């Protein structure tokens, strides 16, 4: 196992945690668990989503989130004396972000609404793709920077962004380059440049979520290489949905080699109080051994992928697959795993 208990958090100066991952790897779940883990260290955390799924609301079992920071959970206190931090959540949509942005930076309250009426907002957010990303990241930037403006502005110790998938993440964060072709000078360009200073700094970390399968692991490698090329800070890799370690290496080898026999296993099962006649227990033993072989095969494939991830030279964390799915209690459990392994 590459993930071991670590004494302290691995990302002390990081203010903005960006969480990405291939579809189906559970990146939103990991982002939520990381936010809870940080809150359990006494931090006030803002968890942002930008893809219009309302996934945060479902995971935390609250009403759909508006374009407004809402308190959704408290962390568990780390030590008996320590106070728990809070998790606020923000659902960012590009349309609201644009109007917000116009009002905040250009004091264009009325003109902003006029733009909306003219379909400019729709144009900017659906047709001009780079602009959409700048608006979404701009709002995250605004929430993460010290000394926020505005009367109800909360100051957060950390912001966790449930970001677009691995294939799009570099483009998403690399806002200046994305805009460069469109706007070489002007206010939008300077705003994007300002954002890039945060995204490129050691106050940001981009974490990758993967499962131990070939394609997601390969995409993680590609994503890390892309970020490094662009000069964006690579964080850790969270290996999600790992299989349980119910069999040790000797047992795995025994079921694979076929040296583990059904007859003695059936006797042990009978001794352990499992009901059934000799034939039924023999069938059960055969089935359990076959299942064990299948498990061993999949574990071996996982180990091969795990070894690849270890070559990426970044801290890795592991989260177990939860047989019953992840509910709110499960999120706290995953947060505990991340905290113990030093991600928060």
């Amino acid at each position, binding site marked *: 196992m590459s993930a071991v208990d670590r004494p302290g958090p691995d990302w002390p100066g990081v203010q903005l945690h960006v969480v990405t991952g291939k579809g189906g790897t559970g990146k939103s779940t990991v982002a939520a668990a990381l936010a809870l883990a940080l809150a359990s260290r006494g931090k006030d955390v803002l968890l942002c989503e930008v893809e219009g799924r309302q996934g945060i609301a479902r995971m935390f079992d609250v009403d759909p989130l508006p374009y407004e920071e809402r308190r959704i959970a408290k962390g568990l206190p780390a030590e008996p004396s320590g106070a728990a931090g809070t998790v606020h959540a923000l659902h960012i949509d590009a349309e609201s972000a644009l109007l917000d942005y116009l009002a905040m930076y250009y004091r264009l309250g009325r003109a902003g609404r006029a733009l909306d009426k003219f379909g400019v907002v729709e144009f900017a957010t659906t047709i001009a793709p780079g602009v959409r990303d700048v608006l979404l990241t701009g709002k995250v930037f605004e929430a993460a920077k010290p000394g926020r403006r505005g009367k109800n502005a909360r100051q957060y110790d950390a912001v966790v962004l449930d970001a677009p998938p691995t294939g799009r993440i570099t483009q998403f964060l690399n806002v200046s380059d994305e805009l460069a072709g469109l706007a070489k000078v002007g206010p939008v360009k300077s705003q994007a440049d300002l954002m890039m200073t945060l995204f490129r700094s050691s106050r940001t970390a981009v974490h990758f979520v993967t499962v131990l399968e070939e394609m997601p692991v390969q995409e993680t490698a590609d994503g890390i290489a892309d970020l490094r090329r662009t000069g964006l800070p690579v964080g850790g890799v969270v290996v999600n949905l790992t299989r349980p370690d119910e069999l040790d290496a000797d*047992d795995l080898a025994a079921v694979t080699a076929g040296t583990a026999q059904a007859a003695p296993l059936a006797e042990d099962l009978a*001794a352990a109080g499992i009901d059934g006649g000799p034939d039924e227990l023999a069938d059960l033993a055969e089935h359990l051994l076959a299942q064990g072989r299948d498990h061993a095969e999949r574990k071996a494939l996982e180990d091969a992928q795990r070894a690849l991830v270890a070559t990426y030279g970044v801290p890795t964390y592991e989260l177990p697959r939860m047989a019953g799915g992840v509910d709110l209690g499960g999120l706290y459990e995953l947060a505990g795993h991340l905290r113990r392994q030093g991600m928060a």
Partner: protein
Amino acid sequence: MTVSSTPGGGAAERLGSHRRSSHRVGRLAHDPAEAAPHLDLDALVDDRGTGIVVCCGSGGVGKTTTAAALAMRAAERGRKVVVLTIDPARRLAQSMGIEELDNTPRPVVGIDPTNGGSLDAMMLDMKSTFDEVVESQASPEKARAILDNPFYVALSSSFAGTQEYMAMEKLGQIHRQAKVDGTYDLIVVDTPPSRSALDFLDAPERLSSFLDGRFIKLLLAPAKGPAKVLGMGFGLITGALTKVLGAQVLTDLQTFVAAFDTVFGGFRQRAQQTYALLQDAQTAFVVVAAPERDALREAAYFVERLADDRMPLAGLVVNRAHPRPPVDLGAEEAVAAARWLARNAGSDAGGDAGGDAHSAGTPLHDPALAEGLLRLHADHVRITEREGELRRRFAATHPEVATAVVPALASDVHDLDGLRRVGALLAVGRD
């Protein structure tokens, strides 16, 4: 359920299967697979009335593999197939001979031709598809002006919305071509892993509403005549835009829109044709999902949207399912026995446990192995129970949707044999 190529027949089928499933209410909780009518994918691809199969669903559910496996199975059953993939795994693309992005279908080598079928494959190159459309719609110098404009470069190479639209554009192109020269009688399309799985359905509509929008008219206004027709807002708008974007950007944007204006009509017409093609009775949508809450929620949303848009749905493919164990041992019973083994592992004879009802005096052979296997079993049972519950809920709310279930494979598919195996599992479609 077989999929009829006529809308009327399809409706009758759906009605029939709905009635059938309602007799099984009592068994639903035990047998989620029985709750939904069976999706017979062999019947679907054997039906000569099926001309287009569109595979859609959220990211990470095996959409690309499903599309490729289905295309290969159809080819080996005698269809002349082309499969249009968006972003296949590198090794899968290599094995199909499509790692080159040249936007042209290439024959896949290694297909069994016994039944007279064939398989071509291509990987979508979004930007060149877009460029081709522009070039076909505008004069050479106008096309050049568009292709060089920074706004066009951003629009055509970004992933937001354009890819969906271009996938459908390419489908339309191949379909028109095939109708003329008869190269293909079945087109299988994979859809992009987009923010919303439905972006490609919305793309034509979005394009039309954008083109008819007031903003476009505003941007064209200086070129086309007096601004006063736009009313009071005009000065406010240009003022605001200049303030935010800068004057240069606004000028670039106006140049782009003015140049693009001439090809808009063609775009809109093509978008509407493609939309009509998707609604046609020869088209069959296959929604792909994994037995996970989010993937099935997305699938449910998809099924409803297809119905609203009168798009013909063939059914649902549930990938990566865990097969139900063939033995009758519940999770709790397995865990209880595992606990007893853990407690008694130290004693080499069960008799030492003194007074324990389980112990019959026989020594345990390998309690750690038995314990591990039982815990593994309990874990597996819990997963199949959760998956079964999710599928049962889906079937309860969408009883008319025919379903095929494909078990989770131990490893990724990256060669033709792997695709052939997936194709066979798709055809069986039951756990």
